[in-house]
């Protein structure tokens, strides 16, 4: 049996090139590679952290940002405990797409999912196109948490995942979430044509 007190599934979404993979790699491996190839499909990493003496295992799902990949990646939303909706503070366009992403979340994620809005690339302050206040207001109006990060400078990256883990534990303790034994498995309960097997019938 694996040794952990909590298991949470976190999915990163947001436009292509906003830095989702870099956030994941910074957090899981402590790296910011000078070049990071575009993510194709879905990638997956695991990191176990300790919070107040409890072991928390985080399954982190990193997705391709381009719109046409959504029909593949949205299968992973449903069983997510948390979503990290990422945009690039130096790219107005990535901010303007957020309502579209929220629609995706509403449609495909479970209604207990914790969503945090992340403005990445704050190391490029002189290229900022989205004011912090504007993003904060937007997040508040949508009842989302908000954080600005730099995967490059490692600013707030640890905080992002740990805060999220704390929030998930808090919710779990309030019985909003089931414990890890009954945490939904990815893809559970969905009619997935790739698995037209008896187990789903």
């Amino acid at each position, binding site marked *: 049996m694996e040794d952990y007190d909590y298991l949470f599934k976190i999915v990163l979404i947001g436009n292509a*090139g906003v830095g989702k993979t870099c956030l994941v790699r910074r957090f899981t491996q402590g790296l910011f590679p000078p070049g990071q190839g*575009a993510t194709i499909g*879905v990638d997956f990493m695991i990191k176990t952290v300790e919070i107040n003496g409890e072991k928390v295992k985080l399954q982190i799902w990193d997705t391709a940002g381009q719109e046409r990949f959504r029909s593949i990646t949205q299968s992973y939303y449903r069983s997510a405990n948390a979503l990290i909706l990422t945009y690039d503070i130096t790219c107005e366009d990535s901010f303007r797409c957020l309502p579209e992403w929220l629609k995706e979340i509403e449609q495909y994620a479970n209604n207990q999912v914790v969503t945090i809005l992340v403005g990445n690339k704050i190391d490029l302050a002189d290229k900022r196109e989205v004011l912090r206040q504007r993003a904060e207001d937007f997040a508040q109006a949508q009842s989302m948490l908000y954080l600005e990060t730099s995967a490059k400078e490692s600013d707030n990256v640890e905080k992002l995942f740990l805060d999220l883990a704390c929030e998930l534990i808090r919710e779990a303790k309030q019985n909003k979430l089931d414990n890890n034994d009954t945490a939904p498995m990815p893809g559970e309960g969905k009619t997935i044509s790739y698995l037209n097997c008896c187990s789903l019938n």
Partner: protein
Amino acid sequence: MDTAIKSTNGTQSFMNQSTAKERADRVDPYGFERCDDFDYESYEELMSEYLVILTRRAIKWTRLLKGKRKVQKNVKLKRYVRKGIPNEHRALIWMAASGAQDRLEKNPGYYQSMLLSHHDSKLVETIRTDLHRTFPDNILFRKTSDQCLLKALYNVLLAYGHHNSSVGYCQGMNFVAGYLLIITKDEEKSFWLMDALIGRILPDYYSPAMMGLKMDLEVLGELVKLKIPRVWQLMAEHNVMWTLVVSRWFICLYIDILPVETVLRIWDCLFYEGSKILFRVALTLIHHHQAVIEQAQSLPDICQAFKQITQGPFVEDCHAFMQKIFTEPGSLSMATLTKLRTTCRGRVAEGEP
């Protein structure tokens, strides 16, 4: 003989001072930097054997082509292709076998006209986002390189996006075009090879609905169910979707999944024989590593196993691997594939929201 000692951090130290690392280039013949933990010893050993094969094949190819720029498809050529096209003839054979050469000759100036046409700003933006995210580990894709391929990559993708506006640009096409440029070193040829791949050889993998991709992943599932049922069972038990573990295999045509030399050998057959080869490779990887996959006890384990099976000596020895893909998965007729594709396309279409 050197004695390898496995140290605790996984790196190897050698009792006798080894110079394999000093003898090999830090960058491979295609511009890719070798990673820090690259196993130079095994590489040297493998290459010393492979070079013999390459030399033998090169002589045979030279005799076959006799300086000709045209080739006829036939059983002999197919056999030759399966045994590997020497790199100096790759562009020629890929162009000829895929029909790209015909298209190029019948459409002089077409590629340039696509570049001169009005640029769709959305397309430009999408391509630009991925430009610097294409092979960051390859020196030819850095602004600082004097043979920098970034502009060529941009041109090929832009021209293709205009040429086939229903596909436009899909992430993954950057890697495919990148490989074509590395091999052909020619924008126009790369463009027509993209046209052959996306327009004729592959089903609609890259179109906005990605129906062809979903169909083929489903087909792979069916083939695994048929040929490697225990793995299929495991995937079903853990609710693992094929999209999760293998979509990159198909979208990137094994780029960045398997070693460069192995990918090129697969592409030799892809251009000559078509997309069936992609299934042969996937089935071989899964079949050969069935025991490894079966040890997985959770979804993360399965994901890990599917990454693990694309690494190591089995895939690095590209010549042996290419022999295996025609034997290990057993028979796979075009008729079977066509039938499965029809069934699966229907199923995928029905499952669409």
